[in-house]
């Protein structure tokens, strides 16, 4: 009984933590400038009037995530709220990895939105971004269900 209750409250904590961390991520995206598709395309326009500022976004993120991950790996042990740390284990470079990255890059370059900025930026209710999010979810789930039947 009491373990059932602690299980449930731990599940609640897990959800609250995910909500808060998601909000921090979205807050960071808003500060970074990644929510503006025109700015993203300006960053990707290497051969035109290049706007390098968004390189500082990935740079700033890696400046924290690289030592942070290193520390978590060294420390070992479980996560604070939800069991073991699930680090990805695959190391093989296969065709879906490369082809998927190419398709993603083409879509990103066409519109200037990748998944995070789209899923954070729809809240301002711009119709084009809502439509993009819908198409992105359809694409992801369509490919996911294909993968599941193979």
């Amino acid at each position, binding site marked *: 009984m009491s373990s059932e209750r602690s299980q449930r409250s731990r599940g609640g904590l897990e*959800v609250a*933590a*995910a909500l808060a*961390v*998601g*909000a*921090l*991520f*979205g*807050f*960071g995206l*808003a*500060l*970074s*400038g990644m*929510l503006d*598709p*025109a700015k993203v*395309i300006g960053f990707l*326009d290497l*051969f035109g009037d290049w706007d390098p500022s968004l390189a500082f*976004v*990935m740079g*700033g*993120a*890696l400046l*924290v995530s690289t030592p*942070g991950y290193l520390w*978590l790996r060294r420390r070992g042990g*479980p*996560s604070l709220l*939800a069991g073991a740390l*699930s*680090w990805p284990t*695959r*190391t093989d*470079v296969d065709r879906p*990895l490369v*082809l*998927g990255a190419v*398709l*993603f*890059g083409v*879509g*990103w*370059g*066409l*519109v200037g939105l*990748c*998944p*995070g900025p789209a*899923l*954070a*930026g729809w809240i301002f209710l*711009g119709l*084009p971004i809502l439509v*993009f999010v819908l198409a*992105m979810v359809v694409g992801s*789930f369509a490919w*996911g269900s294909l993968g599941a039947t193979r």
Partner: protein
Amino acid sequence: MSDFVPGSSYLSSLIGGALIGTAAVLLMALLGRIAGISGILGGLQTAAPGDRAWRAAFLVGLPLGALIAALVWAPPEQTLVAGWPTIVLGGLLVGIGTRMGSGCTSGHGVCGLARMSRRSLVATPTFMLAAAGTVLVVRHVL
């Protein structure tokens, strides 16, 4: 505070990026998960039922955080240069491509590069080059 405009300077990009990196480290420390947005989304479809609530909560948090930033400063610029057919095509390509390639800018770029993943070291330059090549063709060739 008032002269700080999100998304308008190297400093705000750097701070925003550092907060994204902090969120990635916190998600691993608290829940043991990689902060890849496309992977978190895809898992809503395929993960075990008990593994879905945190994903949904994270994806609700994303726009809430952006909204908080907008309330503190100003709503972000969101200028779209693409027309409707391109927006739909781009959305489909981003959805299919990130699922097929197991990640996007956050999963491969921020998290994968941080742990020197071989797959992410291949995927990240691949999608950056594909995106830059697409902008080159659309803006300067067509």
